[in-house]
């Protein structure tokens, strides 16, 4: 009986090994990505203001609303505000899979699976 157990052990190890690596990665649902992002930003806000939009990593780009905040005369004061909280794109992103969001550089648009 020990032999049959060894054979089965080998068979299951082989099954597990043959799967790891090349198996196609499943894409996370876009709603999940949106919710994770919103939750992370909320957590970040709990311990103080977000990094000012003027100081965010430049090559990642700002969406049209963030750009408006950035160029406003009050940018120094308002630049840390999470404007996504007021944006319909966030609501759509959190609730609708592959939500029809077309704003350039919107994080929620960026989570869409194509």
């Amino acid at each position: 009986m020990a032999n049959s157990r060894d054979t089965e052990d080998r068979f299951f190890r082989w099954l597990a090994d043959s799967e790891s690596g090349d198996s196609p990665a499943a894409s996370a649902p876009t709603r999940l990505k949106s919710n994770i992002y919103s939750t992370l930003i909320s957590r970040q806000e709990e311990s103080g203001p977000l990094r000012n939009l003027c100081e965010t990593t430049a090559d990642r780009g700002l969406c049209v609303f963030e750009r408006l905040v950035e160029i406003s005369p009050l940018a120094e004061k308002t630049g840390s505000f999470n404007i996504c909280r007021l944006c319909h794109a966030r609501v759509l992103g959190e609730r609708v899979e592959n939500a029809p969001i077309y704003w350039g550089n919107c994080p929620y648009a960026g989570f869409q699976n194509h």
Partner: protein
Amino acid sequence: MGSVKSQADNRSRERTPGEQDLVFAAAILDKDRKATAEFVGRYSDSIYSYVRHRLIPRSDLVDDLVQDVFLAAWDNLDKFRGASSLQGWLLGIARHKVESYYRASLREPDPIESDRDSDSVPVDDPRLEEALDRERMEARTRRVLESLPETYSLALLWRYWEKRTARDIARDIGKTEKAVERTLARARDEFRRRWNHGE
């Protein structure tokens, strides 16, 4: 190695992948929302894929567990030292979460346990299995794992996919090694039965 921030500061020379990850982690710790969005976009698919495969058949728990992984990552990101890639570090957190779930689930009394003899019979014909197309075989493996009682699929995943010994599992769930071996034997039997009957 120093802290994330100190290592990320003032890097003018070309950065190695490890240093790039440290700089990236530092931007997230600085609450740069664009870096945070990139963090989610870059790693959520691989974490999701890993967790989904490891939680068969409990697909209803996958989303919550993936979210937990990212929250734990945020809570501990200041401890990231760049010894592994950020992806590897995140997968480590995911593995830890998955094993916690296995532990909690397998600690519960098993309603399937019975006194029946757990003697095994050999797999029908390994050569035949080897001849199967790999993709079809993976899909079939998934199907069979999904159809098994949760206790069985988790035990098999923990033992063979996570490569933990029966002794390790027994220690983690507070059962004897023999009890774990018994559960594994039944899980293998049931897997084989369903595999051979085309479930």
